[in-house]
């Protein structure tokens, strides 16, 4: 990163918008904030007086809480709005909702929404910072950054690592943002899953696609499972959860193909026994809980960077 570097983004919409310098800088900032969460008084005045709205149209206790804790540790005032997407049927559109919130002059709006691109759309209508906390099947940038931070912490670097992502690639915004992010940072991302859950053109995003999970995991430094939504069975994307667990589930036999010190990751919440056996999820190689810890640090960093706290 050259000395002239400045973080220059008002919004956090998609990993595609960030350079490698940006990503390194966010991670570095997060690392410096991580210590705050270990103090007995876990609070700094950095964002005092800033107003942050958590606008969640999809239930997600974890991500919402992580953002909220991050904001509060920086002394920002936070407000949670769990809007049901059905408010659109009551005649209020997303834009109406957000314009109303905007009138209350927040500094940032953190949004989770089931429609891809909705955070992008909001930036055209409002002037506060927009932070994407997961949009449809598009991206979940803070999750990708916390994943990268976790791997970097454990492995010291990201360049040249083999990262295997297994499962429902099509519907996973986590997979999409991780493929873009890890690839940008010089890692090799390999994916596998049922072909019904691998979208056209995934190679175009930088991933190597494998027919067999074993090939994807073989020699990997990182093995990441993705959550399978139980409804996918009704969409005929998989015949049964049982078959999924047998063919695509991450178990200790499969993990023997990865590097001995391979990290095990999952964005949570895990369906134990489906995406991953309990044995794997709870093993010494699992960094699933550290992902959660780092999530707070990354979100603190993102809020700090877009809100220009001093």
């Amino acid at each position: 990163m050259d000395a002239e570097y400045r973080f220059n983004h008002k919004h956090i919409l998609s990993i595609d918008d960030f350079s490698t310098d940006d990503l390194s800088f966010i991670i570095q900032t997060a690392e410096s904030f991580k210590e705050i969460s270990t103090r007995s008084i876990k609070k700094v005045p950095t964002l005092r007086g800033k107003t942050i709205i958590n606008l969640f149209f999809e239930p997600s206790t974890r991500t919402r809480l992580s953002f909220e804790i991050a904001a509060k540790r920086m002394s920002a005032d936070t407000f949670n709005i769990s809007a049901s997407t059905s408010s659109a049927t009551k005649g209020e559109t997303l834009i109406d909702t957000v314009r109303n919130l905007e009138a209350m002059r927040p500094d940032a709006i953190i949004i989770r929404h089931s429609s891809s691109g909705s955070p992008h759309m909001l930036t055209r209508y409002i002037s506060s910072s927009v932070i994407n906390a997961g949009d449809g099947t598009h991206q979940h940038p803070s999750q990708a950054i916390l994943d990268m931070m976790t791997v970097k912490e454990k492995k010291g670097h990201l360049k040249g690592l083999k990262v295997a992502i297994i499962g429902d690639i099509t519907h996973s915004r986590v997979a999409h943002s991780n493929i873009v992010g890890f690839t940008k940072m010089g890692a090799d991302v390999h994916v596998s899953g049922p072909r019904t859950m691998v979208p056209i053109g995934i190679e175009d995003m930088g991933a190597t696609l494998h027919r067999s999970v074993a090939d994807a995991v073989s020699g990997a430094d990182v093995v990441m499972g993705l959550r399978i939504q139980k409804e996918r069975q009704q969409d005929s994307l998989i015949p049964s959860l049982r078959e999924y667990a047998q063919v695509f589930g991450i178990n200790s036999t499969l993990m023997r193909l990865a590097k001995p010190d391979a990290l095990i990751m999952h964005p949570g919440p895990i369906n134990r026994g489906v995406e991953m056996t309990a044995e794997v999820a709870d093993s010494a190689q699992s960094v699933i809980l550290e992902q959660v810890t780092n999530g707070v640090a990354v979100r603190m960093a993102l809020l700090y960077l877009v809100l220009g706290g001093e």
Partner: protein
Amino acid sequence: MQPILLKNGRIIDPVNGIDMVGNLLLHLAKCAQINPSSLPEGTREIDLTGKWVVPGLIDIHVHLREPGEEYKETIESGAQAAAAGGFTAVACMPNTKPVLDSAQMIEAVLSKAQKAACRVYPVGAISSHGQGSTLANMGEMFAAGAVAFTDDGLPVSDSQLMRRAMEYAGNYGVPIISHSEEIGLSRHGSMNEGPMSTRMGIIGIPHAAEEIMVYRDLALAELTGQHVHLAHISTKESVSLIRRAKANGCPVSAETAPHYFSLTEKAVGKYDTYAKMNPPLRMDYDVEAIKEGLQDGTLDVIASDHAPHSDLEKELEFDRAANGIIGLETSLSLALQLVRSNCIDEKKLVELMSSNPAKALGLPGGSLTVGNMADVTVIDPLRQYTYQRDEVVSRSKNSPFLGWNLTGKAVLTIVGGKVTYEDL
């Protein structure tokens, strides 16, 4: 009605093999004479040096939204937009609210259209309420003035119903218009399926969703021997299928819309709902194939698929926004781009936008034959303008071409000898 002499324009009329600079006299609502030696009293003389005088343009695929969604467009406002775009006639699709599926509905449209700025030819529904299960009363709608039948907006998913519709329409010698979409494949999709939709996290509509139904309807036209007209063709393989079917003598005509030869899926950009349409914008190779199809006659017609939506339907999350764009006012300018890039010549342009559309739906017009109705469009091929939101005549503004600098437009539109639009 005042006689009009269109002077010194380049008169292009492919039907009569005319391409010459001359004077065209319109008198008593008819094309009266070319290069008349004397003029009736009170003739208005208009000098059109450098401009083209062509048979009135006909757009056979527009949605006028009346009845039911007059806040988006009405027969009156849509006809004004048509006149401003150089169209003297349009065919309007039946997916209004309620659907045009009875003689009364067809009559209601025709009665409203009497005062409109262009001729309006209603297309009736194939199925009752457009629900795709039983045939609508096509015979009585034909008697009331329906010029073709379609459930456009939705495909006719039941192949047997589509076959029966073709056979039944055959009694009246009118075509069935196919909105070719295999809904099982396109369901929930909002843009073209491919690497770009994957990256954007938008559910894609594969090319095959169109091609499967194009193939089905070509097969049914072959089976029944009845004329089917394929609407809004967007893919390379559809063009090949139609080309092959035509070579085998299948009774088919086909149209594409200006956006399918002017834009690719890239126009969706950062989730721009103005670029959301069905079928979706496709790939570079599709655009090339569409142009070839227009060039070699595989695609007979350029139609706008003018689909007005208010901001209420467009200022939404991408996957929830309505499909479709307005097109009446930009269709000609975008088609003229094909002429400037030597993809097609002037004669072909007139065929694609006037004589072929008339032929496809069996409408009057499409030529300047002496004695025919005086429906004439004057085009200034060099006129430059920026397509701006506050100048849009249509009641809705949903166009991905807003802000574009365009070259060439209609400057005079005449319907039955009466000027309906003038921008000389």
